[in-house]
């Protein structure tokens, strides 16, 4: 299997990382060498193997949905790259 430039552009879109042509070329090389390495897994027949989704052999606990941190709006907004009083601000999304 080979990953071409078109695939890189597609993944770049999915992962929301802009990639210029120079970077895309480098990624084609890197990802192909990594996937060549990963393809080793195809040597194994795993048809009858159950996938392992968690090493912790416990069922995840349910908890009640309650607010534990209160009145921290100011603290949270402090880290915001752009704020306007009580809101996060992003570039305009409606015309």
């Amino acid at each position, binding site marked *: 299997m080979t*990953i071409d430039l078109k695939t890189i552009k597609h993944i770049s879109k*999915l992962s*929301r990382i802009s990639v210029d042509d120079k970077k895309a070329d480098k990624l084609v090389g890197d990802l192909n060498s990594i996937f060549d390495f*990963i393809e080793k897994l195809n040597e194994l027949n795993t048809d009858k193997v159950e996938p392992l989704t968690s*090493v*912790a052999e416990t069922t995840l*606990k349910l908890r009640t949905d309650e607010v534990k941190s209160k009145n921290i709006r100011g603290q949270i907004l402090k*880290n915001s790259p752009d704020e306007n009083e009580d809101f996060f601000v992003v*570039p305009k999304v409606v015309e």
Partner: protein
Amino acid sequence: MSDITSLTLTDLVKNIKDKKISSEEATKAFIERGEKSRDLNTYITEDFSNALKKAKNFDQKPNFELKLPGVPMAVKDLFCTNGVKTTAGSKILNNFIPPYESTVTQNIWNEGSILLGKLNCDEFAMGSSNETSFFGNVQSPISKDLVPGGSSGGSASALAANLTPITIGTDTGGSIRQPASFTGTVGLKPTYGSCSRYGIVAFASSLDQAGPMSKNVKDCALLQEIISTYDEKDSTSINFKRNEYSKELTINIKGKKIGIPKEYRVDGMPKEIEDLWAKGIEFAKDCGAEIVEISLPHTNYALPAYYIVAPAEASSNLARYDGVKYGFRSKGENLIDMYEKTRSEGFGAEVQRRIMIGTYVLSSGYYDAYYLKAQKVRKLIKNDFDEAYRKVDAILTPSTPSAAFKIGEKNNDPVSMYLNDIFTVPVNLAGLPAISIPAGIDAMGYPLGLQIIGKAFDEQNILDIAYAMEEKIQFKNKITDWWIK
């Protein structure tokens, strides 16, 4: 007092409890050495003046019942610290000040310890040499231009250089054990679910674990008993009976069965590593352990499986960095453009590479071929260990396939960098505990480590074996202070 900074944690605690050293004296000593050691680039953020204030406060109202009374400590910059910048080694979190504390660090401060500052690491813990950090390379105190390993490279370097008496790192595929091995220090990756992941910047959630890095096994046991707590804020935290590891520590390992997996004799392994391993086996025998040949047949598939599972989880975890609520933001013409530029400029090359691998293996049409396949292989790897542990109590292997390398040496080929973790990755995939202890040096004089892998929740057993072997090995780290002018 000869030199405070060269004391082990256990000795420093004893001196403070005996009132021979005050917290202020200890804190000052580590700060002064830290200031003289900036060329190592271990700190991303120094919190020295606050540390000194806290130390003075401690001395005014000392509580010697605590396990770390007034002991200063620097930690990996992957742990969120309330009010102190936490970057994960990334430009994208360059200005992030958490409004909360990670459970692991909170446990440490609750025992009286004082934060010195935040230590350099590979960006989002993705790397084996600390070269992917936005804040630059870390120098190993072992030798100039040598990598300290990674991703907890700043932690390993600061510890070996006596800038902190003990420290914590995180280990997703070897990020505690490999740098410990490279710097002649001890590093423990605990059982998955032992230490809370709450407040640790997430990389691959099914693999990440925090753990201690120390100058000796006893110190390691002491910190492990402090940081290992059940925490309902981490849904994968496990409620099991935790030992007071340092109190129960014993060198009596007579009759313990230690497995030697033949698959870890990989092609092209340097003779020095072979010899180190053989020496380790002799030491284990001298301690009264019984050596048993075992097989972990799927070992060679661990690394390829890891490079599907870890990037897949990372691509999902790192989706949160979009420039909206915190961290770095780039200007964009519209919302999507802002996201794409923020992530392109905010993440470094290795992180972008892994997000893209992860996005690809999870994308429509490829999930079964890659992610599901990797999870099945992960099951086979865990089965190998389960099978082995019917016959043995622990497993002994080298920690790494080579000693530390030079900065820049492995930058061009990602796969050759990944191969560094060949002996450590299977342990994360199976969720087991493992410790690396220094055991020898190579021809260049660079440290080499041995790894002891245990059954799940059996930290005490591998600490005991490490403690017994440490006494036989008598490793002494040679640090010349070459970076101090």
